[in-house]
């Protein structure tokens, strides 16, 4: 589906920019899954993540005319809006009801133990530190798209990815990360 949408993108972009909401919905539909995963990692809450993606979609629709660059710019641009929405959601959380994440079942296996350690280390990172890791390692965005999503230079994006990865595994070298 992504490939099909990519082929139609210029036309869809034109009609979306002209005010056609259906065209915009078709454009961002392939991006909803990565957007949700990004939000779920940042917020550590699945229903809040869906809310954030929905809200970000509306904001992206309102700001579509501000999108600069070719059709390839849509993904990092949309993900940056999602990340910003997650930041806002976290700021609003202090007065709202805090929903606890699901309690995981305990499985004792060596592999699971390593994963649990990694997850514990990941949860110790701030959402801002998790963000470059999700974009680069989980959503497989190339470095220039990570940079655009973070709204920083590619060098700064690379530095953030490496710094966050080193906090998970202190023995990682830069060559192993990139």
């Amino acid at each position, binding site marked *: 589906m992504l490939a099909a949408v990519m082929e139609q993108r210029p036309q869809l972009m034109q009609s979306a920019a002209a005010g056609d909401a*259906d065209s915009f919905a078709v454009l961002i*539909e392939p991006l909803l899954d990565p957007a949700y995963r990004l939000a779920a*990692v940042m917020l*550590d809450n*699945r229903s809040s993540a869906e809310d954030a993606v929905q809200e970000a979609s509306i904001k992206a*629709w*309102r700001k579509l005319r501000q999108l600069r660059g070719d059709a390839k710019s849509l993904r990092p641009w949309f993900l940056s809006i999602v990340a910003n929405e997650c930041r806002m959601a976290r700021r609003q959380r202090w007065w709202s009801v805090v929903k606890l994440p699901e309690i995981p079942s305990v499985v004792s296996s060596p592999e699971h133990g390593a*994963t649990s350690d990694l997850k514990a280390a990941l949860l110790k990172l701030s959402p801002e530190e998790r963000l470059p890791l999700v974009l680069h390692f*989980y959503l497989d965005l190339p470095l220039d798209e990570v940079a655009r999503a973070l709204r920083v230079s590619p060098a700064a994006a690379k530095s953030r990815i490496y710094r966050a990865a080193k906090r998970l595994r202190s023995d990682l070298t830069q060559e*192993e990360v990139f």
Partner: protein
Amino acid sequence: MPNENFRRELGNVFDEMTGSPSSALPDRVRSSLASGPEQRGPYWIAGVAATLIALVVIGVLFVGNPLNRQPNKIVPGTGPSPTASAAASPSPSSSAQTTPDSSLPPFVCNSSTGFVTKATTPPQPPVAFIDQVRVGTHAGYDRVTIEFNNTDPSQVDVTPQNSPSFTQSPSGQSVTLSGSAGVLITIKGADEHTAYSGSTDIKTGYSVLVEARQVQDFEGTVQWGLGMSKPACYRAFFLTNPTRLVIDIQTP
């Protein structure tokens, strides 16, 4: 390969954290887009409205100037004509020509410092020489006139106070004048030892202004203290040709 192992492990953790989005998410997004507001419309209108409100508020503040009033600010040369002069001599007198009240500033009765200054700063030359200090009494006010023989002082402050006690400078000694209230006149950019040879302590015997005494003539600042029989309103202004600072103390 360590990178791939790290990536795979991290992917597993992220998968565990996120799960999959609900199948209803695309429909939710589509319906919210369909029912949502038009592109940028509300923000654009809100921006214009906020700008208009800000402009109105700035305009009101600029025109009304509610927080920065300077009711006591008087500029030399804007007062009555130079031919109108204050009363002369330290003796009680009402024979001198008086200035028409209609063209003078109103008396002020608050205790804050009144500010009388010259429009051109710094003064040229930098120090104004006081050559005469006179007092006089008139219907409705007692007057102190301080005359300069070369230029205007850079700044004058007039400060009423509840007692007739003043601190002399640079000695730091306290001096108490006659009466029960006072006014301190501070003249900056002036000296009184170059051209003045008159009395530095004038006892008047008037109904309100009972004594005038120099309390400082040091480092380009001259201060005179006025002793008054009771707290009273005052007005301050400049006259020209020659430049004179006039302080009127209102009388019953």
